[in-house]
């Protein structure tokens, strides 16, 4: 089955770098951002063109990045640093300003290193570790105002609430539509795959936001026509949920291995996937209101939370697993990605209590571990298939 709008999106992505180049010629500025709590609406409302800096899968760039940011930094960050060093990525080439946050400390370090070596203009949003506490929120509001002030300086104009309100409305529509589309990928009839939706989500990191919303709405209309009422049920016996470190554009190694091994991916809680678009409730149209909306979402694993029982990240994982009717979790950890590697065993133990198996795949962007990963993923899928069959037999 082919969704025609997806073809249009692929084409628009090919055209996008040139479009950005022209926009910059006409005086527009591009803000490259990365992080989990960067309030993109503020960037957008100030008239910048926001582009997410998220690329992976190229071990050569990882090596280049290691020259600047050490071989002990996570591969994703090393690749970003390497990409800035080479300056060949069409999106990185077009960035005028960078906006990073300090949710993940390695992301923060990347900002420092890029600023130092490549003389980029970097604005950093500090993020409190004690994110759930009122004091931390007060602090974060100040940081969000400061972040806005620094961007206003660069924009040469002040942020007005009416424009911010329009941006928030646009982004809310995007999130709402994405959420609707996401339901289809896990549905029985499989009119759109998780992989297609995942690419669709990441297209939004790069395309013009208004156009993106329109394309999403077209996609949703097509999907609704194909399947009026998507029903999510455990139709096959190898429904896989992906969790853990992000999987940015350019990195499809694990995803392709799962597909090859016969697994069907039906959900994720990746930083590069649907998760950032969920539960974002902006209660007030102001920089503080937007920033708090971000901070109050499901927290990123880089932010420590000291009570296991009330951890919202784990609660969300359970909720998404239940919604997607997944049989097992493949927990992806990138080399030196501390936020997720530190939690791998704990997450496995927590899910085991609910009878959900978890396989940790620890990898980097080199191809050398491809076969080893494949063997492990195949064994895992075989294991959950056998388990599903046994459950069915027992039920019968």
């Amino acid at each position, binding site marked *: 089955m082919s969704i025609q709008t997806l073809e249009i999106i692929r084409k628009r992505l090919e055209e996008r770098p040139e479009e950005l180049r022209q926009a910059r010629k006409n005086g527009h500025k591009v803000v490259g951002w990365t992080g989990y709590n960067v309030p993109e609406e503020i960037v957008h409302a100030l008239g910048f063109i926001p582009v997410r800096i998220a690329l992976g899968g190229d071990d050569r760039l990882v090596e280049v990045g290691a020259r600047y940011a050490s071989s002990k930094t996570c591969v994703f960050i090393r690749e970003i640093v390497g990409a800035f060093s080479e300056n060949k990525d069409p999106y990185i080439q077009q960035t005028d300003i960078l906006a990073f946050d300090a949710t993940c400390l390695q992301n923060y370090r990347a900002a420092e290193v890029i600023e130092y070596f490549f003389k980029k203009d970097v604005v950093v949003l500090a993020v*409190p570790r004690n994110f759930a506490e009122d004091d931390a929120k007060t602090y974060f509001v100040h940081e969000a105002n400061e972040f806005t002030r620094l961007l206003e300086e660069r924009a040469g104009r002040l942020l007005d609430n009416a424009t911010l309100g329009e941006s928030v409305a646009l982004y809310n529509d995007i999130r709402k539509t994405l959420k609707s589309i996401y339901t289809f990928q896990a549905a029985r009839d499989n009119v759109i795959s998780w992989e297609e939706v995942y690419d669709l989500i990441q297209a939004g990191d790069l395309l013009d936001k208004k156009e993106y919303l329109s394309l999403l709405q077209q996609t949703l209309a097509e999907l609704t026509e194909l399947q009026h009422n998507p029903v999510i049920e455990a139709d096959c016996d190898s429904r896989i949920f992906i969790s853990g470190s992000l999987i940015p554009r350019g990195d499809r190694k694990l995803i392709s291995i799962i597909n090859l091994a016969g697994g069907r991916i039906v959900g994720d809680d990746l930083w590069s996937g649907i998760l950032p678009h969920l539960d974002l409730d902006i209660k007030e149209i102001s920089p503080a209101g937007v920033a708090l909306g971000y901070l109050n979402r499901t927290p990123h694993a880089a932010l420590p939370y000291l009570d296991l029982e009330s951890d919202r990240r784990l609660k969300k994982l359970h909720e998404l697993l239940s919604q997607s009717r997944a049989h097992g979790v493949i927990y992806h950890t990138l080399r030196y990605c*501390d936020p997720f590697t530190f939690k791998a065993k704990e997450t496995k133990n927590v899910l085991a209590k609910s009878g959900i198996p978890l396989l940790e795949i620890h990898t980097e962007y080199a191809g050398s571990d491809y076969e080893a990963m494949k063997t492990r993923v195949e064994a895992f899928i075989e294991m959950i298939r056998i388990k599903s069959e046994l459950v069915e037999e027992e039920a019968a």
Partner: protein
Amino acid sequence: MGKQLFRYSEDNKAKFLESDNITFNDGSVVTPEEIWDYLTVEGPVKYPGTYEINLSQGNRDSRDETLPTSLKTHYLSLTFSARMEKAKKNGKTIAFIQGGQAVDPYTAADTIALRPFLVGQWYHGREHGNDIYKSVLRRKQSKETAFHDMSFEACQTGGYEHVQVGDLPIDVVAPYTVLRCSDVSYGVEAHRHGPNKDVKLINVDFPMRHQADKPWAIEYFARNLKKLVKTLDEARGKKTTEDDLWRAIRLHNEGRRLGTELADLWWSTDIPPTNSDDRNSLVALANLDMHGDVQASLSVLKEAKKIIAERVKNGVKGHAVTDNPKRLFILGSCVGINESRSEDAGAIVVGKDDQWSHCTSLVEEEGDPYYNLAKATLEYPYEQSIEKRAQWTIEQIRKSRADGVIFIHNWGCNTQAAVSRPIVDFIKRETGIPTYIHERDLHGLRDEQEQNRVNAFIEML
């Protein structure tokens, strides 16, 4: 071949007995005679490993027997575990903290603050009779358990292996987090799934990015410090007053001033008055947390300053220091090079940024104590931006007249490793001094390869 064992020479006893007592937090005193007895009778039986002459382990403690304070820091190290057990038995609250942070609020709350190294020292000091090999093996085994429960890529495990897997009675895991090391905050979080449900957890949230210039960041950190003190108070069942905090600040400022004066004295002469180990162990006293007893550290520090002043005045050269050694300044993680072997190769370590940066930040003694403490903490030079940190480091390099700079980081210490290249790049550009980046294996499995690199650098200098 039998092990070479070290013993203190009776020739130095009479002089040592003329030195000062050590006074402890509880008001008790230990005399030089008692220290000597411990170091020559009890110590070798309990901790034979520390009396082995084994350069691979960097074990050179107290080789300068004519430096009384060196023997005293050795004594404090050897008695550390027993002192902690005693303190715990007497109802003292004990907290796990981060290296490179001041401990004023913990002192105010009558709490012993132990950085990771000290938590390990306490745990491993409980077992007696081990040689170096057995001690190292024991440390590796317990660390491996923590790696298993967290991540094998962890450098710092937040004391998990002792507090959760072991049975060390730490009351509170309460470090300043994100300060220098992200692993510590993940380490604190990991305690939430450990079997020890009694230990309290708190992240004292040290925010990042130009924070010292932001009043709201200082206020935020000050509020975190108040929460810390409240948590410590809950653990010990008593309330800490502002007066308690002022007293602690004044006490620690005295330590910081003394430590700075001692370092300046040491740097003021061309003839190094001590070897690298002794310099390091004395300057490290400035934070007063080094031996789990602030008063004991202070009393040794006071005496050390007098002795170093005397040595500088008389042109005394430190034990085993070569003529005209190449002067090394060490940057980076909470680890160092093998100082004694580097001295054998013709160098001397004249300074480190870790365990020093926070000692140079005095806390103002008027106004709001929490705010002042927060401000001083956010001003730690080590925690500033690349350029600011490098600029401060250059000042230290110039003061210490270093010939070369080594940025050392532990395997897995991505927070420091990530900025190693730009920092040495900045220093090299501004000073022309040779630099190199050294990755250290936390488990000592690559000692020879690492020393080869250090020696090659010294030879090049």
